[in-house]
């Protein structure tokens, strides 16, 4: 059984994101190889409307964004709608991560406490070392991207 099929099987079975380190250990491969594996698996999965996403720490099998309206109609669900302040805070974190609360407040000129709490509750961001915030796989699902590199002008 090749790694690609094994990876898809593991991700398919889990409804939750899988920790990347566990996959690396199980397959005995490094991060670069896993990235290549994700890329090749996504090429195959595209034909069946699925895509593997990763935020670096975790991996998850999701449905391609092209089918989101079908899911919403069939299951009578609606996508998450965030308030303007929450979107601003999320944007700052997405494009400048890892970033601390003070820096976020400095950019916005107001306290972002409430928005941060809201985003943490929705698991769209998480706290990492030195009280800095980064985005999660849940964030990537929300904005329909499979890797953070897909955020345009990320380094500007």
């Amino acid at each position, binding site marked *: 059984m090749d790694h690609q099929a094994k990876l898809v099987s593991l991700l398919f079975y889990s*409804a939750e994101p899988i920790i990347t380190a566990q996959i690396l250990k199980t397959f005995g491969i490094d991060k670069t190889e896993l990235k290549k594996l994700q890329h090749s698996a996504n090429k195959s999965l595209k034909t069946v409307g699925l895509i593997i996403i990763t935020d670096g720490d975790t991996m998850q099998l999701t449905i391609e*964004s092209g089918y989101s309206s079908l899911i919403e109609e069939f299951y009578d669900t609606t996508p998450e709608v965030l308030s303007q302040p929450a979107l601003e805070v999320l944007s700052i974190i997405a494009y400048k991560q890892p970033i601390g609360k003070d820096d976020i407040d400095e950019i916005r000129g107001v306290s972002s406490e409430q928005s941060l709490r809201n985003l943490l509750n929705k698991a769209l961001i998480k706290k990492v070392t030195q009280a800095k915030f980064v985005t999660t796989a849940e964030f990537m699902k929300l904005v329909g991207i499979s890797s953070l590199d897909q955020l345009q002008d990320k380094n500007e």
Partner: protein
Amino acid sequence: MVAFVLELENFQGPFDVLLELLGKRQLNITDVSLAEVTSEYLEYIAKIDLPIEDMNWFLFVAAKLALDKSQLILRIVPEDDEMEINIAESLKSYQQIKYLALGLSARSKKPLYSSIGRAPKHNRTLLVSRSELDVIFKSLMNYYQKLPKTKNIKSNKLAIDSFKRRFYNHISNMQEFSAQGVMAKSSTRPEAIVYFLTLLELLKQGRVSNSNQKFLLEVV
């Protein structure tokens, strides 16, 4: 959200554009009446339901602009131009963040969904199909016919019709009702059976619809 648009003596347009022009030094802060800006902002927030965090941001910008303007009018030269740089940079950063937030908002309209372990019930699928309903109805009718003929039921068909009528009148006045609720209205077992059979008959005829897909199973 409705944009905050200004109608000042020497500037007409969105507040964001005013800040951009000030940031790029294409408009002099001393030529802008901050009192008018504030007055129009108060009118603006009186008309819309603005989040408190957005109001805080206006206070922050207005305070910085007021400080900048007062220093220029009083010819106070700051020891360094840190404050001026901060205003310009802050405005630029904030404009950029607003732009990025718009992008994220657009992206979030097409999210990626994943398995949630157990999919929610498809709201258009009936738990009990029409043919299954037929089977339930027939078996209950069969059961009903085999019931020991009590004096009341045997001798009084009119009473059954009356129960049915009463039941139908009772539920026809309601938009929604629960099976348990109407069943509780029956005082005797035969009455409960008649109520239930009537309910099944109405379901079969399509005169009532089942929004609580569990109730049939619960009752059966």
